[in-house]
């Protein structure tokens, strides 16, 4: 565990140790290369790669983006070259990245997840696996994996057996009881939870009487969803003991602190990179200043401190003062 000068911002997610708790959200950061001319990737904790599927995907029809008040609606539709091409042409380059690389797996059947996870996890360049279970399950009426505790459990159990690397399960907020899904994911062997993926939404063009997105519906990200995300982290942190990667609308150090205090051990930054690519660096510095200002040595000392029912993460239990 690298200790930075000043305060210890490091975090352990299963076997994965990151010197910094700032993780770039899947789909928002390419493979890191796209941002390398704007920020030194050494100064971020990890990049979660764009989600990959078994087969190549053309993605959704255009338009794929709409701005909304303090938010961004997107419907990319998992455009990606498919895992084979990806392994052959892309993954090799990731060894050059000076930060951890987390593969993101998407699928439309339990088999898909297993196949892609196994293939990706086998590569040394990939430090951990995140499974994005917010995809519709083709085999069961298109119901989203992340919306069904049983499906969640089946997928996680299966992929857990396929790799010893850190397994992160990314949860959807579009459910009645996110804590229940979180418990299933933990029981099935997840090492960490990413909370939350985008919130489903829509915008309509009142001139042409059509949804603005080619895909009609999309996922809402950005500051608009931050209160929703903070609550989701708070509730999941009461329900599980594994670490949580908080995300949804984080733009500033204060935003990030809300998530740590709610019970997140790390944070993920997506949309804010589109405002200013230096945000992850600013937040890392800001966290350090905050801790030093309060004479605290380590970020983990504040995890869950605003959470009255905080129950995780177990690797920190010794520190809970």
């Amino acid at each position, binding site marked *: 565990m690298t200790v930075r000068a000043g305060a210890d911002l490091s975090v352990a997610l299963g076997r994965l140790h990151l010197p910094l708790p700032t993780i770039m959200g899947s*789909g*928002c*950061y*390419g493979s890191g290369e*796209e*941002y390398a*001319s*704007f920020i030194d990737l050494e100064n971020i904790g990890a990049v979660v790669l*764009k989600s990959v599927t078994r*087969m*190549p*995907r*053309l*993605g959704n029809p*255009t*338009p*794929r*983006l*709409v*701005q909304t008040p*303090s938010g*961004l609606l*997107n419907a*990319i539709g998992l*455009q990606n*070259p*498919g895992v084979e*091409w990806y392994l052959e*042409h892309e993954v090799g380059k990731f060894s050059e990245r000076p930060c951890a690389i987390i593969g993101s797996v998407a699928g439309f059947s339990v088999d898909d997840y297993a196949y892609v996870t196994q293939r990706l996890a086998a590569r040394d360049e990939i430090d951990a696996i995140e499974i994005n279970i917010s995809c519709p399950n083709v085999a069961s009426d298109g119901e989203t994996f992340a919306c069904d505790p049983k499906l969640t459990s089946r997928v996680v159990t299966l992929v857990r057996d396929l790799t010893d690397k850190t397994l992160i399960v990314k949860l959807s907020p579009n459910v009645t009881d996110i804590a229940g899904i979180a418990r299933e994911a933990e029981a099935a062997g997840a090492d960490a939870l990413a909370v939350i993926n985008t919130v489903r939404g829509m915008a309509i063009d009142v001139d042409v009487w059509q949804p603005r997105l080619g895909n009609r519906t999309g996922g809402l990200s950005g*500051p608009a969803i931050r209160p929703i995300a903070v609550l989701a982290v708070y509730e999941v942190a009461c329900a599980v003991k594994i670490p949580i990667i908080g995300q949804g609308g984080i*733009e*500033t150090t204060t935003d990030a602190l809300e998530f740590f205090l709610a019970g997140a051990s790390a944070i993920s930054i997506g*949309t804010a*990179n*589109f*405002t*200013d*690519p*230096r945000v992850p660096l600013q937040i890392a510095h800001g966290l350090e200043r905050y801790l030093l200002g309060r004479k605290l040595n380590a970020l983990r000392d504040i995890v869950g401190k605003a959470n009255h029912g905080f129950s995780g993460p177990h690797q920190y239990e010794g520190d809970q003062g």
Partner: protein
Amino acid sequence: MPPDQSQASVHRAAITDRTELAKGVILLGIHAPELVRVTKPGHFLLAIPPSGERCATALGIYEAQAERASILFFVCGSRTRELADLAVSEYLEVAGPLGNGFDLSGQPKNVAIVAGGVGIASVLLPAQRVAEYGGRVQLYYGARTQALLVDAEKFERYGCVLNLATDDGSSGFDGYVTELLAQTEEVPDLILACGPTPMLHAAAKVASRMRVRAQLSLEETFACGVGACWGCVVPISRASAQAPRFPMLSTDGSRSDSVYARVCKEGPVFWADELRW
């Protein structure tokens, strides 16, 4: 549009000058020698919002000479309003230059440049470039009304021949600028166009009727602006040199003739006859 290897970075640039060319049309000069050094015609930049709220704003690089670059924009929402509020000697942070610009490597002699409204912001540098290698530019420049035909004299100074049009007939040709282009008898060697999407569609049609190739600088809503998110894509021919080289299949597993290219990365400039929009 030759695939540039990006030399982009973030520049903290002092504002050197600010002119309101017309009501709500702002020209901001910035001190950014490093940016100027690597800017090519058709490049754009991302203006990082001074208040830290909302996405960065994509803006064409209007001028780029020695130590000074400039941007020219229409105030149409909260982001451009914020930029319009900046005063001389305040700082603006920009990331760029970005994208692949116009391809003038063949040094075409007679170039028609078509600009609609704020599209003018992306076509001064290519006009300058053509003048530099000794080509001639016919500028077809259209706007809603006379007052919004801004800075045309600057183009004249670079030797462009002006062909103006307004939607309301208050100046020049009474109608769309692409109609004016269609009437020309001098067939150009190449057409470059930037403006609202319907204008670009019309320009592409005129070009194809003229049997002249056209390069269009597209506008799309951006998220990242740097090629990371695949949000700004446009369908183009799989055969295009700008088509991404990796496999793309439709959901039904079929291999369609058109694939998606990123406006911010492979573009914003595309060959009209390769677009499948």
